[in-house]
């Protein structure tokens, strides 16, 4: 039997067996909409429970088929192109908010629930998951966790690693394993929720999660200041960080066509906010406060979205640098992009930032390479989230350092057959 016939038999058997698990209507042949970073998968399977999901995963694993877990599909192009992609394992039907224990400030939710739907449920009791994720109407709990997405609120509330308190994972061999739980404080056993966060689905498929919650703020205020240059913006960011203000978010924006701006978000009581706004105004010796409004906090999503200005080719990358080196990074981007690329940046006071480059693929690639080299020299990193069609293959992750062998060892223990998202993560894990 030649190889292609054998592969076809494997696929047919999988399809039949998968139908037996989730019923026929939830197994379909993948179409062009299901392409993952240029790779066409064979099937889309939508299990109706985490047990079904684990069984399908086990089945694919035994058949040697590569599995791409998928939530809302908003960040499916993050990471490297998959080495293989046979089955899309969708969490679309796992969309329930299981329990909002509002008096305990916790929630358990299925992985396929969108962030928008979750926030809506939580808001009924005046609470929220303190995370401003990208595209909340479509992005799911599982996808947001797997990509470790976080926005401006991270400065005050931490990232997902600080908000997730429990997960259930389906492993490649069909094991369903839970760790952590419904209480905020818990040190029993290893912290697997953190291991799964940001693992891009390469260790297991997240099927449900527990989060700690925060109250919705009584009042919010945004101050946005236009600055003379990036150095002045940097000084203000560090001054605010070094002050006793209790701001919830603080970011610097800049771009080829806009002067640097610094945005500050306050949340709290009316009395507290008024007092803090006065203190902040004393610190701003540049132009007066330019504007108020929540729109400035969608800057990250604008940078990441395809329909931004109806642009053609563009790249998006996430960078991490030290808080004191934000201006230096923005200046580097401006210098490298020069006249050839349009660029825009938003950087949070945590040192995490997002850059968008528009222009020819080749130029974008060389700028990203140089920017990565500069960031890594100071201990930072650059991770590519979107690349233009004309851009050459450039590893999405960059230098991982001396822990790569250990990461590979973890991968081998969880997914020895490289069933889950093969080739997509660091070191082509």
């Amino acid at each position: 039997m030649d190889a292609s016939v054998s592969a076809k038999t494997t696929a047919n058997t999988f399809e039949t067996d998968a139908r037996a698990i989730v019923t026929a209507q939830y197994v379909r042949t993948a179409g062009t909409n299901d392409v993952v970073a240029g790779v066409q998968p064979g099937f889309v399977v939508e299990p109706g429970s985490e047990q079904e999901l684990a069984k399908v995963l086990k089945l694919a694993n035994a058949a040697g088929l590569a599995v791409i877990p998928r939530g809302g599909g908003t960040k499916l192009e993050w990471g490297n192109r998959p080495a293989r992609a046979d089955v899309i394992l969708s969490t679309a039907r796992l969309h329930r908010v299981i329990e909002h224990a509002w008096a305990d400030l916790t929630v358990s939710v299925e992985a396929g629930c969108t962030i928008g739907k979750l926030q809506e449920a939580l808001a009924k009791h005046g609470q929220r998951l303190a995370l401003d994720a990208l595209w909340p109407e479509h992005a799911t709990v599982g996808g947001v966790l797997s990509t470790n997405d976080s926005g401006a609120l991270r400065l005050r509330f931490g990232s997902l690693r600080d908000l997730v308190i429990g997960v259930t994972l389906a492993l490649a061999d069909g094991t369903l394993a839970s760790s952590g739980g419904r209480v905020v404080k818990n040190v029993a056993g290893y912290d697997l929720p953190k291991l799964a966060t940001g693992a891009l689905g390469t260790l297991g498929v997240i099927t449900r999660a527990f989060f700690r919650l925060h109250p919705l703020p009584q009042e919010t205020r945004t101050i946005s200041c236009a600055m003379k240059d990036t150095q002045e913006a940097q000084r203000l960011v560090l001054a605010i960080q070094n002050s006793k203000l209790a701001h919830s978010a603080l970011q610097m924006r800049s771009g080829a066509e806009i002067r640097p701006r610094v945005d500050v978000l306050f949340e709290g009581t009316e009395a507290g906010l008024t007092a803090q706004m006065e203190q902040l105004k004393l610190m701003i010796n540049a132009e007066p406060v330019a504007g108020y409004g929540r729109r400035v906090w969608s800057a990250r999503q604008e940078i990441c979205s395809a329909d931004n200005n109806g642009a053609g080719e563009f790249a998006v990358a996430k960078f991490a640098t030290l808080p004191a080196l934000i201006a230096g990074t923005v200046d580097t981007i401006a210098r490298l992009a020069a006249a050839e690329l349009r660029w825009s940046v938003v950087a949070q006071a945590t040192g995490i930032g997002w850059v968008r480059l528009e222009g020819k693929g080749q130029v974008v690639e060389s700028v990203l390479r140089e920017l990565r080299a500069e960031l890594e020299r100071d201990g930072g990193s650059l991770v590519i989230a979107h690349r233009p069609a004309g851009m050459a293959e450039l590893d999405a992750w960059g230098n991982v350092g001396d822990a790569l062998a250990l990461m590979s060892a973890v991968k081998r223990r969880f997914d020895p057959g490289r069933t889950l998202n093969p080739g997509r993560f660091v070191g082509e894990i």
Partner: protein
Amino acid sequence: MESRIFDELRGIVGRRGLITSRGELHTYECDGLTNFRVLPRAVLLPDSTEQVQKIVRVCHRERIPFVARGSGTGLSGGALPVENGVVISLTRMKRILEVDFANARVVVEPGVINLDVTGRVAPQEYFYAPDPSSQSICSIGGNVAENSGGAHCLKYGFTTTHVLGLEVVLADGSLVHLGGKTLDAPGYDLMGVFVGSEGTLGIATKIILRVVKRPECARTLLAAFPSTNEAGAAVSDTIAAGMLPAAIEMMDNLAIQAAEAAVHANYPNCGALLLVELDGPVAEVAALMAHVDEICRKNGAWEIRIAQSDAERALVWKGRKAAFAAMGRISPNYIVQDGVIPRTELPNVMREIGRLSREAGLRVANVFHAGDGNLHPLVLFDRRIPGQEETAELLSSRILELCIAAGGSITGEHGVGEDKKKMMSKMYSEPDLETMQRVRCAFDPLQLSNPSKIFPTPRLCGEKPGEYVAHPLEAAGIAERF
């Protein structure tokens, strides 16, 4: 252990860095949980990462299990030596290597004392947030191993929230760097798994910490309630009102009596005492404090005091921080328990603890981090009375079972260690535990680093580390690996 091994180890750490005499070894036979004792074969006191690596390489080659130890204040037997193993004490590695205020980072060696980090950054008005009650003696390395909490983790998070990077000596002596000074290093969050792994994944030799700016003000409210039920209701109402205090602590009458006897904190004699600390901008704290005050009165608080000055705050906290040790004033012996429950289960769990306490004929004092549902019941007993210690231990485990049944955890901050590993299978299923041990096998396939802790039934790691498992399609010659 053969004498050639002792010679080799002595060559690494010097004569004064190796302890083998029985008398001196007794110092290391237990940690803060003294009912488990094992004498190690030797104790090593390295003073550099290189020395730790060399020691661990010898252990790896000779298959000698090792246990890392900081100040030895742990309460779960996590630093308990293992039979025929060595203890690697990190107390000599106590340098603060770097302080970077612009980025709010501090780099320390594992033996640095928790409070010394705050001491170092206090002049610039920063502090290191995790504050276990033992903070004046416990080490950062130990805090990392246990993911230590403290009273203020309700608002500020745990050790894991404040550790940004680690240099780790793995069980084969190799060195890896996890995380770093910048956030979101590409790759798995192995740092997140390492923190709280109780020394079972290797030895942290360098730790990058985040320090936090001191808030503009902090105010502590002390309220006296008739019982823990009313105090618990006040806690729930405070949270429901959308407030996140820096700390909410509760003590029941027995705990208050003990604290009074020990440190004269001048607490009112009441059924339950609530401490609520708010911090932040002055105007914000003033507005919220008025609200908390109102909530407490509405729930039956008959005395409320608000500490304004640092001196007054210190006095209020003194009794709470001394609560464990204070038990010695009212009971010859006691067991410190550490369970977690969803906060809303507090009245039910308290009632059940009361019932179990009466049935066992033993007193239980209660001290809680009430904001996050972390209970510290203290089971009081007298070892001199035959059978009472066993009864106390049974009662103590029953209380943990209550926590599990309420949907909580067997430990909020003290760790599993030796003490609670049997309870792990009551909290987690077999596949859950097996999955955690996959991590253990990836880090330490020979299981030399603090073996026999955390897991009730250690799992053999099976295939050789790093062994490549051919993919079925690959084995069939169909696909190639890219």
